[in-house]
């Protein structure tokens, strides 16, 4: 059993790092690199939302943190000339700190109230970005340089993306590695003591508080981890598109992060990843249908929900492995 888990990670890494590039190379669909990079980054942000679901809160405010993370990284890179790879964890940390300040009061809210406040939070982030001078208002920050070289005692760990002949592939590899790391961390959290405590929060907060669980601390912790993931996803996105605007992440994105979790299934760690893949790819593939794209996409969403209200991974096919455990 213990050998199986690292094996799973290695298999996943092999699939995303060897099989997928090979398939793309064979099929010649180079544009899929960008799509898959987006899927990887969006699924990191969705993983954060999933963690807040895990403590029993509906989070529709991840867009706020992806936006904050994006701006943090963009400002640090353009104004202070910092290395992108250094701003990446910094963006995450800034988001985590902000989320602690915001989370302390609003995590007292529950159910629909929390959901609606987080929804409003996305709007707050967008409007703040419009109003502040440092974010350059509606014009946004453009011409952000590519990630530069990261070296450690003269040994190059990550090459300069600007000099690579195929930066798309580099971005793809960087984001899928981050994605695998995030999901490994998420899996570790869920299966640790912390995860069990989170589950107790999800089931009954009063009860777990009465047996001595520090619920206030736990929910802020989970929320800040979630926002950290949102921050690094946002920062990477900004670096790929080399620009950030107040409208880069909006309410729709926040809602999509939540939908990814629902679609994949709230009871499964890999749920948000699958949900993101299906939703984003589905949307992309339906592009050929022109003006009927949204109609068919939303009909499929509704049908899926009526057919599988507990998420894709609740299918018997996937359940077999989960039950054995």
């Amino acid at each position, binding site marked *: 059993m213990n050998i199986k888990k690292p094996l799973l990670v290695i298999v996943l890494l092999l699939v995303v790092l060897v099989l997928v590039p090979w398939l793309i190379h064979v099929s010649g669909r180079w544009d899929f690199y960008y799509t898959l990079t987006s899927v990887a980054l969006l699924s990191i942000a969705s993983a954060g939302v999933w963690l807040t679901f895990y403590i029993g809160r509906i989070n529709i405010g991840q867009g706020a943190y992806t936006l904050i993370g994006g701006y943090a990284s963009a400002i640090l890179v353009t104004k202070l000339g910092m290395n992108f790879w250094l701003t990446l964890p910094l963006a995450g940390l800034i988001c985590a700190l902000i989320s602690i300040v915001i989370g302390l009061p609003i995590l007292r809210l529950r159910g*629909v109230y929390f959901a609606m406040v987080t*929804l409003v939070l996305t709007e707050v982030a967008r*409007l703040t970005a419009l109003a502040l001078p440092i974010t350059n208002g509606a014009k946004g920050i453009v011409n952000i340089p590519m990630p530069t070289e990261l070296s450690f005692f003269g040994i190059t760990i990550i090459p300069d993306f600007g000099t690579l002949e195929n930066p798309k592939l580099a971005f793809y590899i960087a984001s899928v590695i981050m994605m695998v790391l995030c999901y490994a961390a998420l899996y570790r959290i869920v299966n640790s003591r912390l995860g069990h405590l989170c589950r107790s929060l999800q089931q009954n907060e009063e009860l777990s508080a009465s047996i001595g669980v520090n619920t206030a601390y736990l929910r802020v912790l989970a929320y800040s981890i979630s926002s950290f993931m949102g921050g690094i996803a946002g920062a990477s996105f900004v670096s790929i598109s080399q620009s950030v605007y107040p409208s880069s992440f909006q*309410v729709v994105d926040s809602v999509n992060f939540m939908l990814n979790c629902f679609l994949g299934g709230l009871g499964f760690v890999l749920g948000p990843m699958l949900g993101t893949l299906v939703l984003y790819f589905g949307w992309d593939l339906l592009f050929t249908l022109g003006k009927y794209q949204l109609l068919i996409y939303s009909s499929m969403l509704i049908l899926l929900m*009526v057919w599988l209200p507990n998420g894709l991974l609740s299918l018997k096919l996937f359940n077999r492995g989960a039950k054995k455990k």
Partner: protein
Amino acid sequence: MEQVLANGLYLGAQYALIALGLTLIFSLMNVLNFAHGQMYVFGGFVTYTVVAQLGLPFIVGLILSGIVLGVMGALIEKYLFRPVIARSTREESTMLLAAGIAFFLDAVILLLFGEKQRGIPKIIDGVLNWDYRIIMPYDRILIGVLAIAAICIFIMYMQYSKTGRAMRALAQDRVAAELMGVDVKYYSMIGFALGAMLAGIVGGLLVSITGINLGMGGPASIKAFMMIMIGGAGIISGAIAGGFILGMMESVGLLVFAAYGDITYLMIFVSLIIFLAIRPHGLMGKPWG
């Protein structure tokens, strides 16, 4: 100042009507209806089609908007929400469904009515001018009065009719209501239809003033969410209070913050978050409604 108050009242009456439908649906089924804004836009387009394209009187358009949306709401409840609520392990799953319906309605509106801004001719001409202190076009006053009348009819209906009593019982305690012989399924459907109908009526009312376009749905939903948070989710008087408070805040904020640019909504949002941190269940809500 009188002008600001009058504007606030006018805005508040419309907002309260939107929030009423949302809060009714929430209190009966514990569903956060993401598609509420889209339903409102749909209602506006129905009135536009009836009045501007078929040339029928405004009141016919308004009634038809209500009926079309009411039927749509009933069907959505019966065939989509009911089976999903019955089968899902977590209540929140209905949010995905609601969001899916919101996208679906957006797509339907786009295909049926196009993306253009639509409006209908003024219902009555002329402007009320009270000593230059309050200047307000008559049609706005009419719409404001109609909205307030609709709110009053709705409250009377909820308070004194058999259906209204059943729905209030349902909102208080679903199981107890069922034990008392209330047909829970039937009244959930009626409640959803009624909520959707209110959204349709607001849409019909507003199309005569501001017009309507596809993009208005999402922001309208967010505003409606804020209103029911201010007043307390699932509480009818709370929704009305929330609507008027938001209308007033918007109207006063536009006056006060005019010098600082477009930060009214930022201020409203921030004060809302602070307010909720102090009073998490709104003005009149039950704790953890």
